């Protein structure tokens, strides 16, 4: 007669063997959190990782005392508790009985799973990123077209208005000369009244002001139109649609065009000092590097409360182009410095930072076989250094 209804106690010796020879590590802890038993797999793991008996607890979840207490109060806590040690990840379940003396921890090596999960996260991030760049590109192209159309006739018309304005002022001047001559001679009462009317109109409309300001107003409007043109061009340069290809680019120009995009963010916070060195063009993904520069510049501005300084410099260092972006902002405390490139790590308030900027930047720099470094002192400021290899092609394509 076979039955599956027998209680597990009926198989006590087998359960002991099952525990002892289980390929997964099993640890038994007492109520004080001392290790009382390790199965074979746990012993082997201890040896492999070079852990002493005192150290073995480090493989367990950090809050293990709490878990032990909960198990002894309420019974089994079969949930996935994670721990990380020496690049290995474990998922733990804890088993105990209420009022009992000991708690079993059963672990599984989930390093591989964690690696896949991390890769998937990175991949997802890249997809989001690509998607974002593509939509920025489309938006930029759309904006460029929509703005450039009306801007075209504004530019053409301003030119005509400037010419007409100059013409009108010249005519008025000539009339004035004639009027002065005529007024000097004997004139009729009617003519005198007409002249008085002209003087009234001049005073009322403020002729002197018009003469003085019209050229300035036109010049300023033309400068404004020119600036709009430059902004649109920069916006387009910043994110060329469908031009996600590698090409030779002048990093100094990339920095300049990115700076123009974010200057609205920076100019109320900081003085920007630009020191561009003589560097060769490099083979790169310019739009992606622009994004790195933008992230760093926006971060720099966020770090500054007011009246700060942001310094951008480039230089050639042997086979690398070195780009430095420093700010006189609040700095990064040492405990955070090692984490800033982590995905989703942010100290900015909710809604202000996503924790993606620097992790994406670091990915992009890595993609270019470069490296990104950070130096920071709290209260003094932060400097990011980006090293990009020049490569063989780049050496030939010198900046003219």
């Amino acid at each position, binding site marked *: 007669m076979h039955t599956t209804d027998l209680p597990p106690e009926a198989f006590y010796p087998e359960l002991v063997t099952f525990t002892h020879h289980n390929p997964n590590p099993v640890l038994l802890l007492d109520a004080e959190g001392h290790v009382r038993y390790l199965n074979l797999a746990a012993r082997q793991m201890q040896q492999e990782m070079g852990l002493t008996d005192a150290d073995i607890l480090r493989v367990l979840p950090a809050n293990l005392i709490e878990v032990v207490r909960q198990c002894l109060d309420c019974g089994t806590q079969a949930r996935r508790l994670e721990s990380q040690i020496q690049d290995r990840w474990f998922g733990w379940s804890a088993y105990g009985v209420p009022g009992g003396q000991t708690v079993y921890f059963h672990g599984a090596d989930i390093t591989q799973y964690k690696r896949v999960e991390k890769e998937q996260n990175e991949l997802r991030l890249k997809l989001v990123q690509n998607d974002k760049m593509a939509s920025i590109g489309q938006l930029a192209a759309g904006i*460029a077209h929509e703005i*450039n*159309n009306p801007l*075209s006739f504004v530019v*053409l018309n301003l030119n*005509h208005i400037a010419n007409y304005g100059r013409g009108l002022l010249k005519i008025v001047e000539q009339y004035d000369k004639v009027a002065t001559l005529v007024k000097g001679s004997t004139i009729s009462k009617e003519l005198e009244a007409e002249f008085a009317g002209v003087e009234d109109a001049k005073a009322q409309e403020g002729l002197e002001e018009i003469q003085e300001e019209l050229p300035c107003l036109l010049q300023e409007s033309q400068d404004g139109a020119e600036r709009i*043109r430059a902004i649109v061009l920069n916006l387009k340069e910043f994110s060329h649609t469908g031009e996600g290809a590698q090409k030779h680019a002048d990093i100094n120009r990339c920095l300049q065009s990115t700076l123009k995009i974010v200057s609205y963010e920076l100019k109320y916070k900081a003085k920007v000092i630009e020191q561009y060195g003589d560097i060769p063009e490099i083979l790169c993904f310019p739009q992606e590097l622009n994004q790195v520069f933008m992230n760093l510049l926006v971060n720099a501005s966020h770090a500054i409360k007011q009246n700060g300084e942001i310094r951008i410099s480039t230089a050639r260092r042997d086979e690398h182009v070195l780009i430095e972006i420093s700010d006189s902002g609040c700095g990064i405390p040492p405990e955070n410095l090692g984490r800033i490139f982590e995905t989703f790590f942010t100290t900015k308030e909710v809604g202000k930072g996503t924790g993606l900027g620097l992790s994406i930047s670091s990915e992009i720099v890595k993609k270019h076989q470069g490296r990104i470094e950070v130096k920071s002192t709290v209260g003094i400021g932060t400097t990011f250094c980006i090293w990009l290899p020049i490569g063989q092609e780049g050496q030939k394509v010198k900046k003219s």
Partner: protein
Amino acid sequence: MASGRVLVVDDEQNLRKAVHRTLTKAGYDVIEAEDGEKGIAAVQAGDNPLRLDVIICDVHMPKVGGKEVVTYLKSQFPSVPIIVLTGDPQYKDATDFLANGASAYLAKPFEPAALVKTVAKCVESHVFHH
């Protein structure tokens, strides 16, 4: 003073007017049209239906866009130089248009001097070919 007959095809009336004014001042006879077909009708309805020296044509219009307009105008006026106007200064597009029969291009926004100079060059080459 320069002379010649220019057809301006653009869906944006204000831009047509601005181009018209600029070229009229430079001495050209200008015909405006909001699309290619109306442009051809306008040229044929004019005083001198045979004469056309330059076509200026926007390549981002709602009905027929880009290359089709250039191809169409080229089929109607094979020997007349076409200047394309583009609001999207992608050099690749511009060179595509040049390869497709356009003689020159202007990226919006352009200065009046650049417009006049480009038109003059095209008219000159057209007259020379005649």
